[in-house]
């Protein structure tokens, strides 16, 4: 897993029609793709699901970065293909590999076009998340905030990781030298500083937040409000229909691999 893999899941600050969709709508799209992909192990279905997401990737202007995440997924898809060859037919191996690519694409599309802020807002609107958060952490917003912070810190941590690697290489550390055990041990000088930086940063973040009055009182409002537009309703309707039809077919017909 190189750091470039993450590129295919990183939010891009664009204002395309896909980016402007409500995050809840986009998550429903993910589910609408997920349901048929998991219910049917059929090659045609998988290809149809892949192709149907292409327009969204193109309109969202993230097709190139999606290709990056696909390239990173080549190794895993190869693994899935080989493992399934041993357990089933080559046709089902192809179908399952395609299924992996479908899932990869839909999550990649979601994360590339949904800003962490929007994601946080959407999570905040979900009653179950607020309830859990209040039970575990004492505040209704804390859980969604934790989640968005974690997502947001990934790129920062990636920069730190690069600096740590550079610093240790400057001290003569050669990561890809020695036998397997030595190579694993080579990562200790990388992981310890990185871990400590992450801990130190979260402590500082906690202090900074507290000094600005976080988490505030119940009933906190937010500057940006999520609003479902007509296009969102249309997509929600299509997605729900897709999910419904998928289940209906699943319970009434048996779909072969090919």
């Amino acid at each position, binding site marked *: 897993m190189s750091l470039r893999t993450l590129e295919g899941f990183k939010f891009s600050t664009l204002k395309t029609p896909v980016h402007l969709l409500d995050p809840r709508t986009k998550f429903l799209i993910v589910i609408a793709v997920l349901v048929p992909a998991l219910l049917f192990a059929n090659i045609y279905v998988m290809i149809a699901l892949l192709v149907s997401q292409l327009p969204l990737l193109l309109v969202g202007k993230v097709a190139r970065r999606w290709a990056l995440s696909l390239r990173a997924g080549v190794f895993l898809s190869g693994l899935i293909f080989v493992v399934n060859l041993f357990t089933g037919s080559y046709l089902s191996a192809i179908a399952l590999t395609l299924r992996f690519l479908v899932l990869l694409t839909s999550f990649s599309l979601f994360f590339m076009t949904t800003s962490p802020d929007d994601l946080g807002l959407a999570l905040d609107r979900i009653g179950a998340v607020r309830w859990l958060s209040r039970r575990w952490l004492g505040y209704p917003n804390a859980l969604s905030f934790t989640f968005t912070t974690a997502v947001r810190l990934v790129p920062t941590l990636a920069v*730190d990781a690069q*600096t*740590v690697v*550079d*610093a*240790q*290489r*400057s*001290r*003569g*550390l*050669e990561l890809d030298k020695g036998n397997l055990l030595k190579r694993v041990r080579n990562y*200790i*000088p990388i992981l*310890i*500083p990185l871990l*400590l*930086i992450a801990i*130190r940063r979260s402590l500082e973040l906690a202090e900074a937040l507290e000094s600005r009055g976080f988490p505030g009182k119940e009933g906190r409002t937010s500057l940006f409000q999520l609003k479902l537009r007509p296009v969102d309703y249309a997509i929600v309707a299509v997605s729900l229909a897709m999910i419904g039809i998928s289940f209906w077919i699943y319970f009434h017909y048996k779909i072969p691999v090919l």
Partner: protein
Amino acid sequence: MITLEKVSFTYRSGQRALQDIDLNIAGGDFIAIMGENGAGKTTLAKHLNGLLKPSQGRVLVDGEDTRKVSVARLSRKVGLVFQNPDHLLFSETVKDEVAFGLKNFGFAPEVVHNQVMRTLEALGLSEYAETSPFLLSGGERKRVALAAILATEPDYLILDEPTIGQDYQQKERLRNFILQLYSQGKAVVMITHDVEFVAESNPKVILLSQGRIVAQGPADSVLSKDELVKKASLVRPQMSRLFGELTKYGLPSDVVDVHRARILLEEKLSEAKVRVAQNS
């Protein structure tokens, strides 16, 4: 000798960080690289031990092209001390931390031990030899990071912002230490925003702005020129600002350090004293 020939570097993101840099660093040199945030100072430093390879041009370390030699091998000659010690400290004790580089370079255990103790002594860290580096203050951690590189006795020492977080006494010690190193024939290159530190140490200054060298020369001639200093988002050192106001008394405007200022002012004052005595 480290030679940079027409070095340009562009990050993968397309950001141009260095353009047409020509630079020679020889033993006995003391060079300060200054410039605004994002001018390319750290990028330049990472070229000196091969962490980054030039997109165009080449970097030669004692005649070896950095593109053809491993970073580990270059690091034996070129010691690069990173700005933030937290990016490199990981050992259980300060002693182990300083020994890490020496062990990587394959020195014998007794050599490692002697070298570690000598370096800790030189940097005033002996009492912390068995302490965890994470228990030390920010300034001390920074000195441990410096010790970790110094212990390997590089011919070229590159320091990225060494004065940040150091109190004035420590800065004074650092200055003396640097002086010792380059008078022993080692090269010291320092990246810094600290104009006062540079003014008092009088190295050769290289001003970097937007990836290009915009000026180079002795500290007093570079740091006393307003238009140059502004280009690199710096301000002139206090002494230079003072002498800039005093030119009407026939004093030179390129004074940046206390020592020279004192000599010039003493001269002027004693002249004035004589004149007052003659007049009365």
